[in-house]
């Protein structure tokens, strides 16, 4: 599942001056492996947990879009939809009425 470039990038980034712990595991659920693979490339997936649980499903969708459009995350539409659904199911709060 995890594309090779992501593994290589993670290795590259780990050679820095700082010893790094593995990020906290994401909640188990459909798409967790995809989210871990893609959302650990530029920063740890701790960024997801740190920003929970207060974003709505729409806000998570906007975050994934921001990662692609503003930060250049190489994630195609199909993969983005899987990740967005995973985040909505596991890290979102229900929309307020």
């Amino acid at each position, binding site marked *: 599942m995890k594309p090779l470039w992501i593994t290589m990038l993670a290795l590259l980034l780990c050679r820095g001056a700082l010893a790094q712990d593995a990020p906290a595991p994401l909640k188990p659920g459909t798409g967790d492996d995809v989210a871990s693979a893609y959302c650990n490339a530029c920063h*740890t997936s701790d960024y997801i947990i740190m920003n929970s649980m207060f974003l709505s499903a729409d806000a998570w969708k906007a975050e994934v879009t921001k990662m692609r459009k503003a930060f*250049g995350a190489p994630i195609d539409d199909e993969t983005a939809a899987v990740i967005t659904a995973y985040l909505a199911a596991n890290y979102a709060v229900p929309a307020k009425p």
Partner: protein
Amino acid sequence: MRRREIIAGAGAALLASPSVAAESTTLPAELPDGTRAVAQFVNLPDKRRMLRLTDRPPNYATPVNVFTDVVTPNDRFFVRYHLAGVPSAADMDGWSLTIGGDAVNRQIRLKMSDLLDLPTNQVLSVCQCAGNRRGFFDPHVAGVQWPDGGMGCAVWRGPALRDVLKAAGVKAEALEVWVGGADKPPMEGTPPFRKSIPIEKAMDGDTIVAIAMNNAPLPLLNGYPARLVVPGWTGTYWMKHLTNIEVSAEPLKNFWMQTAYRVPAGMFPVQLPFKSQATETTVPITELVVNSLIADPLEGDEVERSGFTIRGVAWDRGTGINRVEISLDGGRNWQDAMLEKPLGPYAYRRFSLPTGSLRPGTYKLMSRATNHAGERQADKLKTNPGGYHNNVPRPIAVVAR
């Protein structure tokens, strides 16, 4: 000032008041649950006991108890990166700084020895992340969920930026100074972290290229070997690992200037508007808002009912602190704290208040500062999408026994 003095220099007296307060061990309850789950107190190679928010990129907050002192020690100074490509100290061997752009007469490259030959300035200044206390926003907003330790105050020393620029010759049409550092985007499509400041701020003698922090080299994670110091302005402009400067007649256009780090126009007071980056609806976040922090006692502490002393620091964008009030009852009643001698317009100003004897029970301590411009900390949060400039007094609950 001669070379050797830069690192060995005087002013050590300021650094000599060790903190006696106990270390904070709890995480504020207002932080998002997820933040409370991942944040941890950790030691780093050259930092001790920091609150880790994320380690890649490195984002570490200073524990609150450290702010009983005006000067934040280098090994407790907060760390903030957007991009995970943090250079190593070895990467900085042979470091140099290029100065160019369309508004200089000639492009030049300066080595560390060239900077050491320039006249030296020194400023005791707070460096605060624009998103400090974002974690206390209600409702929460996305971003790094800082509690109140995304800041510190240090003695910064190095040549004034204007003296560095003079070597390249600044043209009359100069509008902005663009700065970039050695930290790298993790992926090709991620915009490199580059920022700009207006030429007026660049020419202010207190804006310096710091090559020393608290009389020592800058720690790697605070921008070794040189960073820009922009007193009174949020940390986003304080470019770490500074490697290139461009003076331009044009505004810098990129994600970090035009999309990130912006606040609604007119929401927060500033002395020097950043006109070249303003739009009708938003402006870049620039000058700090007036603020204060209680560093002792800490949330949840048991205190003596015979009385204890409340201590902390207050700061602002450089007008100076005029007054600090303290409440013991969650903001209903306020009384004036005593202020220590000011140590400069950009520095923390310490305050204290002995409580006198108290009835046993829970007390909600709050502090609220007013600056010399008459601006007081907000009673109600000025919500904004970036989660910036939170200066609402926050109650600290302690129990008197």
